[in-house]
């Protein structure tokens, strides 16, 4: 009898371990598919960002060029007060140029955590373009539906210290492998930001969400709506774009 119980416990334990390993493998596979959809060698896109403040809403349009995860240039196109302002990211450094002051200013340290133009995005949010699989380990924590779509809920835990959000929860479309919702948490477990992603479209050979609503949970505004109006992946971008000379 004792031997039977021991054998049963062993089978159960092994089964659980196998199940856990399978789930981790599944989570990693899902995350890799998400990376394939969201990451690219380079891309050029135009977008509008509508910031719903506590009192007013304002829309800013911009054009961005990015290469890999370390180089990006954004030029603000409107409104007139912001037009001509450029932001350049090279490695882990960020510069902003504004024609009104004719100055190039480097943003560093804690300033990177500040809001960009009063939006719910920080400079860090805009700069961090690393593949999720490079930064996080994942596990499947639930299967659910969201907005009528079947989703797999992944819990991501940072494997490195240089991340803005040590823990994330991600609702991933089980068919298109695009996140439909993201929740970013501090190490303490406090919810810092929530992103809802909509209008997933087939662009070139990937699925890509073209409308995102960011909400900084520590702010009282109405969130920031980020809409991609056009995007091109893996195209040729001239070398000079990613140099400080392109700022002026």
């Amino acid at each position, binding site marked *: 009898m004792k031997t039977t119980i021991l054998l049963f416990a062993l089978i159960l334990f092994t089964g659980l371990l196998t199940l856990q390993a399978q789930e981790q493998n599944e989570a990693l596979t899902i995350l890799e598919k998400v990376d394939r959809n969201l990451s690219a060698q380079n891309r050029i896109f135009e977008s509008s960002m509508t910031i719903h403040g*506590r009192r007013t809403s304002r829309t800013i349009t911009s054009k961005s060029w990015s290469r890999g995860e370390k180089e990006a240039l954004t030029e603000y196109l409107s409104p007139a007060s912001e037009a001509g302002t450029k932001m350049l990211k090279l490695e882990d450094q960020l510069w902003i140029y504004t024609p009104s002051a004719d100055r190039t200013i480097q943003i560093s340290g804690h300033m990177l955590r500040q809001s960009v133009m009063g939006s719910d995005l920080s400079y860090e949010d805009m700069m961090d373009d690393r593949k999720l699989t490079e930064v996080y380990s994942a596990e499947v924590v639930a299967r659910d539906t969201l907005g009528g779509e079947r989703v797999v809920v992944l819990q991501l835990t940072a494997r490195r210290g240089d991340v803005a959000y040590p823990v994330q929860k991600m609702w991933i479309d089980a068919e298109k492998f695009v996140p439909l919702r993201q929740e970013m948490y501090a190490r303490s477990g406090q919810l810092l930001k929530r992103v809802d992603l909509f209008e997933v479209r087939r662009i070139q050979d990937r699925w890509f969400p073209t409308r995102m609503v960011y909400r900084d949970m520590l702010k009282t505004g109405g969130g920031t709506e980020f809409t991609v109006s056009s995007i091109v992946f893996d195209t040729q971008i001239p070398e000079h774009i990613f140099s400080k000379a392109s700022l002026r």
Partner: protein
Amino acid sequence: MIVVSLGALLTVFLYSWVKGVMGDSIEMSSNFDTGDVKVVTRAYARQADQYPNDLAILGVDTLLEALKAGFPDMDWAPRIRFGALADFPDSLGETRGQGPVAGWAVDLLGEGSREPERFNLPAAIVRGRMPESRGEVLLAENLASRFDAGPGDSFTLFGTTMEGGFTFVNYTIAGTVRFGATGLDRGAVLMDLQDARAAFAMEDAAGEILGFLPVFHYDDRMAQEVVSRFQAGAGSGDGISGQDQEYAPVMITLGRQAGMAEMLVYAEAISGMLIFLFVLAMSIVLWNAGLLGGLRRYTEFGIRIALGEDKGHIYRSLLWEALVIGSIGSILGTFVGVVFVYIFHHVGFNFSSMMQQASMLIPGIMRPAITPAIYYIGFIPGVLSMLLGNALAGRGIYKRQTSRLFNELEV
């Protein structure tokens, strides 16, 4: 009588001095931060410690006119508080160094503005001069030194407009100042209100409007009366009546602003204790004077008793004399004390030459306060102590026995 007069004079002067110094510490908070009353939007008031300029008052000019009409005796000062990044360029215009700054935008250039005086400017200027034109600012000396910047140098202020957009504005350092508080000296900037309005897209807007009562030191009852009248409609203007209630202006007294109620109680308690101790000490001195005066007249009382004068009459006459001397001495002492208080209140004691480093938060000139109490406080030691001292000394009158009296008087 001279002793009583001196005692009353010292009591009056030191009372008003203690009140003045304590009142100055409250006044400093009023000048820098709270005003005697402050007008902000309801939403701003809830997060006032963050200076949320996106919740600032709009239609400030209309509101200011209404406030000036409703409360003509008061001085109203719109201000903008902000946080930003000061970026110091090298010769090529690249970032040489940068640091966060806390900023005050006040009416520095307006004709007849009392704001420079409230900030103890230009006494607190370490290098350079006061701003004389738009685009010139004052910077904390420590911040300027840290980035090897000084008068004539330029820097860029990088901040956020009222709507949340970027703002980059180049300013010239007109002078550097010492605030006298470590946090502010590490990074603070003082600029003209119009410059800040242009930089932060706050035309006809202000984060707060500070109101200053026409009294030297903060008067909570008077401030509350102003708030009551404002709530009843005085000074609230027509231009803001259509605004969303969330952004409607509300008026708050200094005593109702964060941490100030405790500070008022603390200042009141400290000044009360100091005044009590001083009046007590002075009372003991004058009581002792009265006591000694009574005892010196021991022989006189003996003769008067021997001549058949009633003991009660002698005692009452002693008290009357004490009352008259105390009253005349107190009136004289109070008069001279009040004159001194008025003179020094007007002129002030200038300690700045004794201080190695004058700063905005440590006023170089201190003044005694003029309050109703200076007209009667001198009578406490002057009259009451004299009466008490003589009353105690006079108790001996009733203990004198006629049989021993002749022996004492060697008759």
